[in-house]
């Protein structure tokens, strides 16, 4: 299968703290990976490095054949912008723009970045809102929506740029338990359409059901990876076994 994202020996430190020690993995087009592991293990930092929110210290990262970071330096600006549009990120805290309506939140990037005509962008936004089940909320402001609805708008906003890969950074961690279901349902819908995704989550049951592969991370390293059934039923590494037994 075609590799859409390739990460080799990725390293990242904050001061003297090594957050990502030596991360390597490939993501194939259409593949869904869930990243599990205890807090502070480097899961979010990994996503943030790949979306250019944190600077990479060392290693090689290539997205859809374009090198994002390699030989100790980043690609040039034009390449970086192109790569930015290929990866979407859904934040834990949604980070919707509170002063813009739901419609504007979704259309601002297509209009500004992709130079899409406004009418076309709004048409796209309406389709996406329908997909996340919020057709009637286009003219609302984020503060008028529940957390679950806000996160679904954030997913629609990320999809509006038609990314090759979509990252989720603990998409349900900021939500009340009764609201996580509606968000997970939307992500499951994306999975049914074979959207390529990396999902950092603490929702074990969800990760097990939706993923093609699970990566278990701790202390900045990938401790174990494999198909969900194998990882959940017969984890090889004692650390993985320990973690899964404590959360289940």
């Amino acid at each position, binding site marked *: 299968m075609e590799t859409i994202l390739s990460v080799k020996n990725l390293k990242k430190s904050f001061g003297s703290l090594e957050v990502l020690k030596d991360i390597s993995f490939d993501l194939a087009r259409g593949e869904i990976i869930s990243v599990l592991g205890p807090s502070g293990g480097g899961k979010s930092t990994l996503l943030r490095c790949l*979306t250019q929110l944190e600077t990479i210290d060392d290693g090689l990262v290539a997205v859809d054949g374009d090198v994002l970071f390699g030989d100790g330096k980043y690609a040039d600006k034009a390449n970086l912008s192109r790569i930015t549009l290929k990866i979407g990120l859904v934040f834990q805290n949604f980070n919707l723009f509170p002063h813009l309506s739901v419609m504007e939140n979704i259309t601002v990037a297509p209009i500004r970045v992709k130079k899409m005509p406004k009418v076309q962008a709004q048409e796209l936004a309406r389709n996406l809102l329908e997909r996340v089940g919020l057709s009637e909320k286009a003219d609302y402001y984020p503060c008028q929506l529940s957390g679950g609805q806000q996160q679904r708008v954030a997913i629609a906003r990320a999809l509006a740029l038609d990314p090759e890969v979509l990252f989720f950074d603990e998409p349900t961690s900021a939500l009340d338990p009764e609201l996580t279901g509606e968000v997970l349902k939307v992500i499951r819908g994306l999975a049914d359409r074979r959207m390529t995704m990396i999902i950092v989550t603490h929702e074990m049951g969800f990760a097990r059901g939706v993923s093609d592969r699970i990566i278990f991370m701790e202390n900045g390293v990938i401790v174990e990876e494999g198909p969900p059934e194998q990882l959940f039923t017969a984890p090889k590494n004692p650390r993985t076994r320990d973690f899964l037994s404590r959360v289940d």
Partner: protein
Amino acid sequence: MNLAVFKLLLDGTVITLRMFALTIIFSIPLGLLVSVLRMSRLWIFNLPARLYILVLRGTPLMLQIMFIFYAPGLIQGFPFSWQGDRMMAANVALILNYAAYLAEIFRGGIQAIPQGQREAGKVLGLSGTETFFIVVMPQVVKHVIPPMGNEIINLVKDTSLVQVIGIAELMNTAKVQASGNVSIMPYLVAGGIYLGITVILSAVLSFTEKKLDYYR
């Protein structure tokens, strides 16, 4: 109080309002520039901005007005002269002083916007400039309106300080007319005019705040 005195007070009011307007118009962009420099990580930018804010907030406005007007004439070989243009000197002093206060208000407003907003802009492919003007600035406006309102209302009354360099604005006119006519009325009328201006500004400010109330 006769009509002629009232007319003089109105002339003073026009001068006061013109100074007020010019100060608002020019101190906002200057204050924004100073706040951006102040937030720079490079000392070559943030140090001058810090110094500017420290001096302008740390000395009396009245002293600044006098210094700015008199310094060119009193310092030997100063390459610039006001050519007697007191109004210009007064405006410059007010603008420089208010820019320092506004800079700190803007800095507070800009820093109050969560980092996640900028990150969302970046991940969506917006440039730094686009993120600043589309995502950050509109939210900053909402944050800074209440503290800016304070400064704006202070400014109405601070314009009276320019009388120290002999400008016949509202307060100065009232003082001259009160002593000339041995009457308390010019003070009362001047006070009423300042109060009227403040009432109107307060109404405009609270209207603006309400307009921005559509989101949290």
